[in-house]
């Protein structure tokens, strides 16, 4: 019987030739991640163990990105816990303001994510790294604390679901639309406890960044992880950032899937997920909802490709007078690159603003909170009640091209309307 990529990576990390869905395993972890919200609890729990070292100084990443640059005294105290802990134990991968970025954009960019790795992170969007052929999944702070001490964690081997995207993408359609389409099809618990494997010709055509966007939102379908086979593009991305060895796994021809769904990519339009669940998808073309704010950024769509697409739509245009546009490059390197390419000029001339890297408004933290009744188009990943501010505000999820076009028109729209 064949195995899926997910099963192969899990087997390799618990010293077995094979694992089956449903097996409970204890696996070695290659990287453990925490941020300024989740790591403080993990640090407290770790310190209560009374041991004087972490399992590996180079396999822990502490990334203060949510409420940074520190939005208030309490946030500053939380970040200080990460900073002090990193100094005390000698954690290598701690990044502070000026070097930090949104965690799931930063770690791949730094070459810390490679095919075949097993990664856990105390952040639900840790599933992002599956785009590079790694098994990665979100856990809580206690799991993070235990893994920092032991270098191990437990898993139930998930069943896999396969999503095959054939054909080519239509203009303005991106990885964001493919994953929104998927979530719209199967629902926010359609992949509960399962691995989501993405494949097909449209996936092969997709950039690494588009795949990162897709894997990022596997959790929004309840998935344990999202995964792609690392192809030439993924390997090139990794090799240009890291000299470390890695293992590329492919699913066997006889691998078992709990379900296989096939989609014609060309039939997928730019989509918008309406409040208050990512599964409430509708074509952007049919929307027309009046908006107050647009946010382009986050671990989902704050990478250089996303900023280029947004700038392409905004070039020579002005943001609608009733709309506030906030652009947030996800990392310092993306920020620098966007500046070098002249993208900031486009955003500023359109009368949008460019923020320092932060998760900020995506989770209603800071830097763009919504008032009662306000509506926001965001390239982020969640549109839950109160997600970006007031419990009676609304978030509409979309790709960067739709977000930029909507900023110009003052209502949710397909970018075609500006041509």
């Amino acid at each position, binding site marked *: 019987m064949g195995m899926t990529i997910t099963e192969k990576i899990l087997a390799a990390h618990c010293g077995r030739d094979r694992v089956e869905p449903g097996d*409970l395993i204890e696996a070695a972890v290659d990287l453990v991640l925490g941020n300024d919200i989740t790591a403080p609890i993990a640090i407290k729990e770790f310190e209560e163990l009374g041991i004087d070292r972490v399992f590996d100084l180079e396999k822990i990443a502490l990334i203060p990105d949510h409420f940074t640059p520190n939005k*208030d005294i309490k946030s500053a105290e939380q970040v200080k816990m990460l900073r002090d802990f990193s100094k005390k134990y000698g954690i290598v991968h701690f990044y502070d303001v000026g070097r930090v970025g949104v965690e799931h954009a930063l770690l791949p960019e730094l070459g810390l994510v490679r095919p075949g790795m097993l990664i856990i992170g105390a952040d639900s969007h840790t599933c992002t790294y599956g785009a590079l052929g790694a098994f990665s999944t979100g856990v809580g702070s206690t799991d993070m604390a235990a893994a920092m001490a032991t270098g191990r964690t437990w898993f139930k081997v998930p069943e896999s679901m396969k999503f095959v995207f054939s054909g080519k993408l239509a203009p303005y359609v991106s990885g964001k639309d493919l994953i929104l389409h998927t979530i719209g099809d199967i629902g926010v*618990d359609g992949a509960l406890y399962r691995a989501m494997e993405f494949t097909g010709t449209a996936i092969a055509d997709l950039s690494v960044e588009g795949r990162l966007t897709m894997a990022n939102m596997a959790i929004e379908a309840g998935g344990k992880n999202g995964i792609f086979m690392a192809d030439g593009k993924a390997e090139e991305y990794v090799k240009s950032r890291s000299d470390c060895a890695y293992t590329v796994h492919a699913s066997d021809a006889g691998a078992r899937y709990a379900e296989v769904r096939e989609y014609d990519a060309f039939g997928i339009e730019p989509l918008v997920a309406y409040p208050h669940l990512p599964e409430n998808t509708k074509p952007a073309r049919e929307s027309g909802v009046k908006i107050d704010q647009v946010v382009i950024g986050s671990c989902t769509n704050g990478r250089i490709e996303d900023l280029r697409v947004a700038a392409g739509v905004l070039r020579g245009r002005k943001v609608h007078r009733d709309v506030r546009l906030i652009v947030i490059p996800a990392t310092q390197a993306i920020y620098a690159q966007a500046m070098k390419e002249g993208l900031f000029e486009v955003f500023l001339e359109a009368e949008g603003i460019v923020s320092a890297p932060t998760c900020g408004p995506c989770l209603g933290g800071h830097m763009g909170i919504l008032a009662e009744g306000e509506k926001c188009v965001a390239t982020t990943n969640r549109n839950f009640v109160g997600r970006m501010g007031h419990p009676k505000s609304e978030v509409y999820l979309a790709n960067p091209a739709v977000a930029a076009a909507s900023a110009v028109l003052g209502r949710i729209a397909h970018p075609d309307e500006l041509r």
Partner: protein
Amino acid sequence: MKLKGKAWKFGDDVNTDEIIPARYLNTSDPAELAKHTMEDADPDFMKKISTGDIIVAGKNFGCGSSREHAPIAIKAAKLSCVIADSFARIFYRNSINIGLPIVESREAARETGEGDVIEVDLEKGEILNVTKGKTYRAKPFPPFMQDLIAKGGLMNKVKSELRK
């Protein structure tokens, strides 16, 4: 262990932003978090509940963020248990790890009314709706998780392993 309290009903896909909104996550103090439990699902929730009360919800309870603050807030609010049709994966894991009792039962989740008095016997895996006089069987935990629960959560298990 037997738990007893009044049921507070919620729908499907209750997410962690509703359980504990991110605007309160600049602290990890359980007592502070408890004040805002379920605030964006029901702003008056904390004014209405009594110690030992039980949350009863539909499918996919606790979806969204990995924030352990969600089960921590529920536990610190002195709610005794969450019964749901199903739980989102990370919330499930976090609850087991920190020792918040959670019970899966589709029938109990569907048939319980707001304010019904519920008794949960965790060892037997039984849910008794005292008001309606009806008993339900909960979906049992796998042995690995029963062991984790018996050891008092993940960190206690790690502590005992590190001592070996």
